[in-house]
């Protein structure tokens, strides 16, 4: 059902090398409106690299990206944002020495009619958004380097959802968080999904992802092992894909699948 509509994102045969290393090798992946796709694989599998191509941080060597069915030109993070792609990076990409409001609006500041920064308006909006996300957050005036890992993560997430993203990439979003904050992020993902946002949820740990995702895509050594709807496979089967590259009957094999 979902799969018959035009995908929000279609990445086809994407490859990129760093020096001699093929970090991503002929990987294809799709994402639909209101869908959560779990991107799984060991550390070093190429997950972050693949999605950084979508978010404009890296330029692919080969392959195509289509957004809403039309070819997309993504050469830098600005281009990606233009398509409504927002990213929460694994290495928390926050500007350490400016405050939360400045981070939320970085690159898209609110300005007064004179063209100067409207800090008060930005802080006000930041208080509103952060209040929804993390009601305990109080430290609006401090540079974010003074904040805890969880607080920094809520700043990064707030920034991603502030500008009506259509496509949200979350690269190991709960890695730095405690159980309570992790649960909050889970709730947030469900809410965003219900608003029709497509989400790539990346993790090396299947437990973070399986219950939230509609579909999982597994990568190994830069290649896609296979993909499956979470209703068609078990956690153990997905674990087998991650560890051994073995594709169960309920999954569609990719170029990285080993065949017995």
């Amino acid at each position: 059902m979902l799969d018959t509509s035009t995908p929000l994102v279609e990445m086809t045969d994407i490859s990129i090398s760093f020096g001699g290393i093929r970090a991503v090798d002929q990987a294809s992946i799709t994402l639909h409106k209101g869908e959560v796709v779990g991107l799984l694989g060991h550390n070093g599998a190429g997950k972050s690299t693949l999605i950084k191509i979508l978010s404009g941080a890296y330029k692919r060597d080969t392959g195509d990206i289509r957004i809403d069915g039309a070819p997309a030109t993504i050469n830098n993070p600005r281009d990606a944002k233009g398509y409504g792609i927002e990213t929460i990076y694994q290495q928390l990409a926050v500007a350490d020495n400016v405050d939360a409001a400045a981070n939320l609006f970085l690159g898209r500041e609110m300005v007064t009619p004179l063209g100067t920064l409207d800090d008060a308006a930005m802080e006000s909006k930041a208080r509103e958004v952060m209040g929804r996300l993390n009601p305990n957050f109080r430290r609006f005036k401090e540079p974010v380097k003074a904040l805890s890992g969880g607080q920094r993560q809520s700043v990064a997430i707030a920034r991603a959802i502030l500008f009506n993203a259509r496509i949200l990439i979350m690269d190991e979003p709960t890695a730095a968080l405690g159980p309570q904050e992790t649960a909050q992020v889970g709730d947030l993902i469900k809410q965003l999904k219900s608003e029709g946002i497509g989400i790539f949820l990346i993790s090396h740990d299947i437990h973070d992802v399986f219950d939230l995702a509609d579909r999982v895509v597994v990568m190994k050594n830069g290649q896609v092992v296979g993909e499956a709807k979470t209703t068609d496979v078990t956690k153990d089967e997905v674990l087998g894909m991650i560890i051994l590259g073995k594709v169960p009957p309920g999954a569609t094999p990719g170029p990285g699948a080993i065949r017995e």
Partner: protein
Amino acid sequence: MAEHALSSPVHPSSHARNALQRFLSATEVDTRLLGMIGALAIIWVGFNIFSGGLFLTPRNLWNLSVQTASVAVMVTGMVLVIVTRNIDLSVGSILGLVGMVMGVMQTSFFPVQLGLGLGHPLIWVLSLAVGLAVGTGIGALQGVIIAYLRVPAFIVTLGGYLVWRGAAWWVTAGRTVAPMDSTFQLMGGGPGGSVGAFWSWVVGILACVAIVVGLLLGRRQRQRFKFPQRPVWAEVVLGVLGCGATIGAVLIANAYPWPTRIAANFAEANGLDVPEGGLFISHGIAIPVLMAIGVGVVMTFLATRTRFGRYVYAMGGNPEAAELAGINTRWVTVKIFMLMGALCAIAAAISTARLNAATNALGTLDELYVIAAAVIGGTSLAGGVGTIAGALLGAVVMQSLQSGMVLMGLDSPLQSIVVGIVLVFAVWLDTLYRRNKY
């Protein structure tokens, strides 16, 4: 309960334990800046005692302000350069080259080649415009090499240090250019290059009005968004201190009279009667000092109120995050170096006008003084941290040390040793301060 807390938010100062803490928290002044002002006060009083009361005189303080102007102008740009984890070693050489170019423009190109004639009223502004264009162009070139060709700023500007100094020699094959255009000379200070008592008061009162209006606007803005307000007494203290300092500066500038002979000549030329004990004509604030203050205000505005400034600080804290946030970090870098070049041109105008000549060696060692002033003023070489106001204070501290030592009759080698030690000491203090803060 919650409703109530939202509608009248509490200022953090109400939680402060002792009086000093309450004062600092209520006024929201930067403790670091306050520390620097304290250090400056100690230096001033110390020199005054050791020089037998020569330091805290209108004459010395006025001279100090004029001597600081050129470095002060450049340090405002150096802050942005260092905040983005770059460095500019070429500012002294750019100053030298641009000074030479402006010298040639006003002594031969515009008056002779273009036939405007010496003393034409447009010469100063045309020369300055050419200087600004050359400075900005040099900055753009260096910035493009740094940002787009990815050569480290240290290397590019080290190269620039040699190239522009050499180029300065080429302009006139080493010949000193003098004298400068008479209007242009006003940018160097001196009796003619000061605005006098009346206009000093005008400037001072405008500044006081700006301080009060600024405080009021800030208060209204916080009200609009229901942010915690500073207590009223804190606002009043800030206003009184700000206006007091401004008025004090004007009083000092006005207390320094023209030298008697110049005053007498002036009186004769204007048919004035010279009273008993000589004519008292106030210098008032020097034009180069006004230029430096103006530059400081504009640069503070750029750094804190514009997108450009926001990006500068964001890049300095985490260049990758800034890039990922969609900021065109390379173009911002180019703009910073262009700005630095333009500021070098303004500093060159002040220096050449003050010397009334453009020489080959003009601006030698300035890069070190400018960098030292920025660092003493709290700019972190690790990037991301530094304020224009702090750097300006740093420039005043540096110049105070030098002037003070001259007044005390210290030899110049000893002066260098002291300045060097102070630089290292200041940065060490700053490291301690930051370690305690985070």
